[in-house]
């Protein structure tokens, strides 16, 4: 098998002073979907944020694309993190939000925008302020980024939350296509979502200290 895209060992991270991830090892290969499962408080978000460099963490080994790196921020522009907070700016319109999100990565292209707006069912809403959108619509705007980003890894924290059935199906298609093209996805969800035909792996996380 090829080199893992992300290879981490001996990972420890804390949330509010309590250890939530203890001595964890994790490998993620190109073309692989990794599902983080576990009850609330198991540290799924903490782990994801640590892998993106948004949280202090220590590790004995951290490799990106076969290269040793000293901090997650060194590969931050090659991954795409979409967390609980929408990161959609309320005072910008849908179109301006997408432009802003695209500007975060100079390699991103917005050529397919009209088609993308159709796909996320927001055609006709281009000039609406994001503050007037529903939670699900905002999430679609945030997720639309996936289609114009050149990232190698998607880190999606509860991406299916507040999406309707069609939205979930669309995101499933996007993930499947991305993975078939060699991308990697790390996501968490409490919903039942399958990816038939994909290289799918699941990690069950436990609340630390509960077992003892």
């Amino acid at each position, binding site marked *: 098998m090829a080199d893992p895209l992300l290879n981490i060992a001996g990972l420890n991270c804390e949330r509010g002073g309590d250890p939530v991830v203890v001595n964890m090892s994790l490998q993620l290969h190109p073309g692989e979907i990794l599902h983080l499962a576990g009850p609330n408080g198991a540290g799924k978000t903490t782990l994801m944020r640590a892998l*993106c*460099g*948004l*949280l*202090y963490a220590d590790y004995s080994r951290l490799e990106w694309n076969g290269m040793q790196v000293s901090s997650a*921020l060194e590969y*931050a*522009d090659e*991954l795409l*993190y979409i*967390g*609980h*907070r*929408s*990161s*959609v*700016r*309320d*005072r*910008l319109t849908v179109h*301006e939000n997408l*432009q*802003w*999100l695209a*500007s*975060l*990565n*100079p*390699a991103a292209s917005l050529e397919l925008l009209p088609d993308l707006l159709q796909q996320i069912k927001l055609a006709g809403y281009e000039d609406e302020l994001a503050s007037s959108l529903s939670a699900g619509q905002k999430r679609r705007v945030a997720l639309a980024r996936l289609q114009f980003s050149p990232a190698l890894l998607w880190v999606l924290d509860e991406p299916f939350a507040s999406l309707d059935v069609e939205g979930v199906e669309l995101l499933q298609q996007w993930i499947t296509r991305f993975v078939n093209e060699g991308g990697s996805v790390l996501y968490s969800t409490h919903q039942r979502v399958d990816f038939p035909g994909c290289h799918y792996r699941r990690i069950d996380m436990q609340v630390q200290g509960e077992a003892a």
Partner: protein
Amino acid sequence: MLAALQTELLLAFRKRSELANPVVFFIIVCALFPLALGSRAELLSPLASGAIWVAALLATLMSLDQMFREDFDQGVLEQMELSAVPFYQQVAAKIFAHWVMTGLPLVLLSPLLALMLFMPAESYPVLLVSLLLGTPVLSLIGAVGASLTVSVRRGSVVLSLLVVPLYIPVLIFGSTAPQMAAEGILPLGQLLWLAAMLVLFATLAPLAAAYALRVNMLGS
């Protein structure tokens, strides 16, 4: 960088009703002086530049708390941090947009208020130049304070305590320059000091603010 600047200016423009608050405060403070002290030129004109500068300083201080708060809470800053565009450049764009919406209106309104306070005519150009050099410094220093306190709820008291001491040199140089001009001396030294401070903080403050924001993000 240019795209970030464009977005931040657009956002600042959309927030103009909130950002008008400090500007209105500035006008009110300056307008209250003649009412409280009586509109006598010999009394007001020595006070004019000091009053305008103190009002400008307090107006800027009022606006600081909101500089990063909303973007921090909505997860916008973390996306900026993860993006391919250097974070400090995006922070610099935010600071510049903040100055355009709060500092620049103060500069543009100051001649009108100087008139109300009987400022001598020869001080006007110096007042304008001192505010034009000084208000960006207030925004830049304020940005460092605002980024340090961004995760503190009700952090505005801490923010004031942190920032006001650093504002004192700007206030001294800024308010004495027009006074010297009124006495017929060209206050080149004061203005050059303000310019030097502007260069110093324009270089360092975005880096410091970006670092402070990052530390706050990691801890949250």
